[in-house]
């Protein structure tokens, strides 16, 4: 039977795909019934606390834990050296797909040397967290301070200390791409615009910190870990390999996760340590990072300096783009996803919306005595988009074109796909032109420019920003994690089952952190099967209960996991119709499933309910022909085959007011038009975009991990590290252009990072638009009142 000949289930009236449905998890959360890792307790549970390096770089001469060990309530201490003996070996955060990349071996806790302030050194386990912390205070460590390397600009100078002498220098990785003829294009250019852009470090600040509750049972040799994670299967294999346990004896459960944003796709030494403590003690060990620990151990991101220039013709055609990236990462490359993706993504996507042919980009990634950096929401895109879009605005200014018009002249045409970008990446199914015109309409662009001009007359400086973007979502198996040797699945899976009652269980490898992944998978499965949504239950976040998958990262859940779910549901539907056909003596292709019943295709005359199929298929199988063995379950996996990513696109607009006396920036309104392909749940898609945009705005205006010359983080509290508050954020208008991706039947692309990817670019463009009459410009993020006043020459 050819199910593909059946009508597209998404186009049916009242299809669950394309419909706003509320999330089941939301009802629990509003009643205080969410269940996060720290809410879970186990009999005999003890708590871990850590002594962390107070220095950015120092040798450990001696550790004395005797006072801590004799403290009331302390059950164990473990040094980094003791933990190392319990590990199968050090981690090395390199991937073979990044040619020439190098990183030093790293144990979960510092062994004889600490390389960043906050690196765990000694673990103390106590009956309560307070008692464990009491013990940790009594650990004495003799340190010998070492010179620190904290400025990326000088990290490769011969006079700068090399953090890991065995590596030879502080260079983690370098890469360049060159489409050819870039110098010639610049030589012939009418106009060249150039700038140097600075991007400060920031970090995820999930409101729920990292959390782990490890429970090793020596009797069965089973390790069960509840942890706040986006990627249970990756954690399973890492814990198994690092701690020397059979992988099938490790169960990872991600209960409710209180925010993640890419933070919780990584591995952290203190979590491994707490798990090792559980194995050593044979009892449950809990570790919950406090906020200061989070600031000095959660992965950081973004620290980059980009020197860039753009060649443009007098009529506003972009002719060439040339960028030079310097990324400052931490003391080690984060295992296993590495610390070089951000720079690599800047290479991939800068200038990506445009049809220019000549592109050259070089990236150097250098080690610093700071917290390791790695993937955080929209990896590299906020930087690449800011660089590209800022230069496009400079080009508009130089050519006298309106910022919207210059983009109109340069974006890839909607009818030009598939095509290659200047960076050498295949682009397909994009809609820059449709997004741009939709944005202009929704902003009331012309009227807004008039309003801006009238405010200028009154001495009020408002700015309008525009930023087009591309976003790599749902990475495929080529060139990245799996291909580079990391135990990370780029495919995902769904196992779907018809239960005797006619209810359906749908277990998926992708995970939910509040986006509504479970709701969306349920909608896809219900639509594909033809059943009421309340007869389906989605299971995620448990390696014992779900098929193997990569989990949720890189905006992949709906695009990859959703297609696997769609295919699994269609396969189950096919089997149900075969069984129904046998029972009804009908050809399966003449039957259909609508609203939980098998019906005659077309007339929708009721024939048999799914509850009957379930009952017969499980209990009264004698009613079926001997040749028909019901399975009533299907597993399907999905991966990209040829594509590097499923690229999405969109454009953002924003309207700001800059107080030129105080340097304060007020966000007035914000617009996003994006193309995530087929939208499954409009409300959830909108809210992903809004939340993502605000996270990007945070990076543009507030968020900054500030280090002093000694490598000490200066702002490790939420009072000092600023994240967006309700009062400072604007309302955000969201619209979607839907160009289904041609790589799947579902047609969904990723959406979760699109807001974040271009918000910093659009806010910087708006601020500079406001400052334009003063001949002032900012090129560093975060853009603080101080930086505005400096740009204006007022301080």
């Amino acid at each position, binding site marked *: 039977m050819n199910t593909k000949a059946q009508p597209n289930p998404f186009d049916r009236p009242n299809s669950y795909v394309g419909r706003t449905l*509320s*999330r089941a*998890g*939301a*009802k*629990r*959360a*509003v*009643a*205080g*019934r*969410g*269940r*996060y890792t*720290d*809410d879970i307790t186990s009999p005999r549970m003890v708590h871990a606390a850590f002594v962390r390096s107070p220095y950015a770089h120092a040798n450990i001469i001696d550790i004395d834990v005797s006072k801590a060990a004799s*403290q*009331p309530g302390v059950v164990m201490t473990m040094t980094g050296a003791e933990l190392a003996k319990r590990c199968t070996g050090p981690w090395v955060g390199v991937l073979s797909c990044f040619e020439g990349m190098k990183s030093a071996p790293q144990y979960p806790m510092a062994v004889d040397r600490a390389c960043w302030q906050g690196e765990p050194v000694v673990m103390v386990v106590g009956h309560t967290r*307070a*008692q464990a912390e*009491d013990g940790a205070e009594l650990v004495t460590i003799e340190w010998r301070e070492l010179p620190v390397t904290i400025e990326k600009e000088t990290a490769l100078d011969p006079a700068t200390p090399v953090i890991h002498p065995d590596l030879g220098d502080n260079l983690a990785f370098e890469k360049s791409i060159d489409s050819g003829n870039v110098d010639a294009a610049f030589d012939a250019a009418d106009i060249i615009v150039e700038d140097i852009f600075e991007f400060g470090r920031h970090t995820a*600040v*999930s*409101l*729920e*910190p990292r959390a782990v509750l490890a429970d090793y049972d020596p009797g069965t040799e089973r390790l069960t870990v509840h942890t706040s994670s986006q990627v249970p299967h990756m954690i399973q294999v890492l814990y198994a390999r690092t701690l020397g346990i059979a992988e099938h004896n490790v169960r990872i459960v991600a209960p*409710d*996760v*209180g*925010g*993640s*944003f890419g933070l919780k796709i990584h591995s952290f030494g203190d979590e491994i340590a707490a798990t090792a403590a559980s194995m050593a003690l044979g009892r449950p060990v809990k570790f919950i990072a*406090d*906020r200061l620990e989070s600031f000095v151990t959660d992965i950081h991101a973004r620290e980059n300096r980009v020197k860039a220039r753009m060649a443009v013709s007098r009529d506003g055609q972009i002719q060439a783009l040339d960028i030079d990236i310097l990324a400052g990462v931490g003391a080690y490359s984060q295992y296993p996803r590495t610390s070089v993706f951000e720079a690599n993504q800047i290479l991939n996507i800068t200038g990506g919306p445009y049809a220019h042919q000549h592109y050259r980009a070089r990236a150097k990634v250098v080690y610093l005595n700071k917290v390791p950096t790695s993937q955080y929401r929209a990896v590299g895109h906020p930087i690449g988009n800011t660089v590209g879009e800022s230069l496009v605005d400079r080009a508009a200014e130089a050519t006298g074109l309106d910022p919207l018009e210059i983009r109109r002249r340069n974006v890839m045409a909607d009818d030009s796909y598939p095509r290659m970008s200047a960076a050498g990446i295949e682009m397909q199914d994009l809609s820059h032109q449709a997004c741009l015109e939709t944005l202009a309409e929704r902003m009331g662009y012309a009227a807004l420019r008039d309003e801006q001009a009238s405010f200028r007359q009154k001495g009020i400086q408002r700015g309008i920003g525009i930023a087009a973007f591309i976003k790599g979502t749902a990475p495929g198996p080529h060139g990245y994690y799996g291909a580079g040797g990391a135990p990370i699945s780029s495919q995902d899976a769904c196992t779907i089952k018809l239960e005797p009652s006619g209810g359906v269980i749908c277990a998926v490898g992708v995970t939910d*952190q*509040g*986006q*509504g992944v479970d709701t969306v998978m349920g909608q896809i499965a219900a639509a594909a099967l033809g059943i009421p949504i309340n007869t389906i239950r989605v299971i995620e976040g448990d390696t014992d209960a779900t098929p193997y998958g990569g989990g949720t990262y890189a905006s992949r859940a709906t695009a990859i996991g959703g297609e696997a779910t769609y295919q699994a549901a269609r396969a189950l539907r096919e089997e149900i119709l075969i069984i129904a056909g046998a029972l009804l003596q009908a050809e399966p292709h003449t039957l259909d499933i609508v609203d939980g019943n098998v019906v005659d295709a077309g007339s929708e005359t009721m024939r048999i309910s799914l509850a009957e199929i379930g009952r017969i298929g499980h209990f009264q199988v004698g009613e079926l022909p001997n040749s028909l063995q019901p399975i009533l379950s299907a597993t399907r996996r999905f991966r990209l085959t040829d594509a590097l990513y499923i690229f999405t696109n969109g454009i953002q607009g924003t309207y700001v007011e800059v107080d030129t006396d105080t340097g304060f920036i007020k966000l007035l309104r914000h617009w996003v038009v994006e193309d995530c392909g087929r939208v499954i749940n409009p*409300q*959830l898609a909108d*809210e992903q975009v*809004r*939340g*993502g*945009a*605000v*996270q990007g705005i945070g990076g543009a205006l507030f968020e900054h991990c500030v280090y002093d010359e000694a490598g000490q983080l200066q702002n490790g*509290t*939420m*009072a000092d590290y600023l*994240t*967006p*508050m*309700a*009062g*400072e*954020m604007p*309302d*955000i208008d969201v619209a979607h252009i839907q160009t289904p991706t041609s790589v799947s039947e579902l047609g969904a692309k990723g959406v979760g990072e699109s*807001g974040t990817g271009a918000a910093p670019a659009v806010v910087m463009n708006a601020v500079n638009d406001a400052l334009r009459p003063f001949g002032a410009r900012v090129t560093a993020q975060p853009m603080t009142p101080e930086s505005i006043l400096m740009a204006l020459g007022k301080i």
Partner: protein
Amino acid sequence: MSEETLAITLNINGEDVTRTVAVRQHLVDFLRIEMGLTGSHLGCEHGICGACSVRVDGQVVRGCLMLAVQADGAEVVTIEGLTETGEIADLQEIFVTRNALQCGYCTPGMLMTIAELLRDPEPVSRDGIRAYLSGNYCRCTGYHAIVDAVETTLKNRLRG
């Protein structure tokens, strides 16, 4: 360091409770660890993020900045109690239908704060709602949906 303790008696969500607590334990650790009321969350333990907001003697306070012993004799209401009384059932329903939460970690504290705004409802602009909520951080939603939910609930209540 031996832990100094004190006996306290307080009313939590309508039930009288007597417990001996460590004098250094803050109110939300007490509620979460000793009383199993895990709806109140800890985000920063510096009084910034608002995830630990609970009601003490009618006022919303940062549960991480108050010691449990300071609640001796007090009436404490957590999200669990507030839910059971039905005081904010309308707000909770609109939070769900408007998807005014994602991970849900900030939500109980956010709802405690909004409950205060709704107690004697009067018209408040969107900017006013935003200002009122600025002591409760949300990292997921970008706040727009939360402002929508509060605005709708407020309008409904004012309409009576």
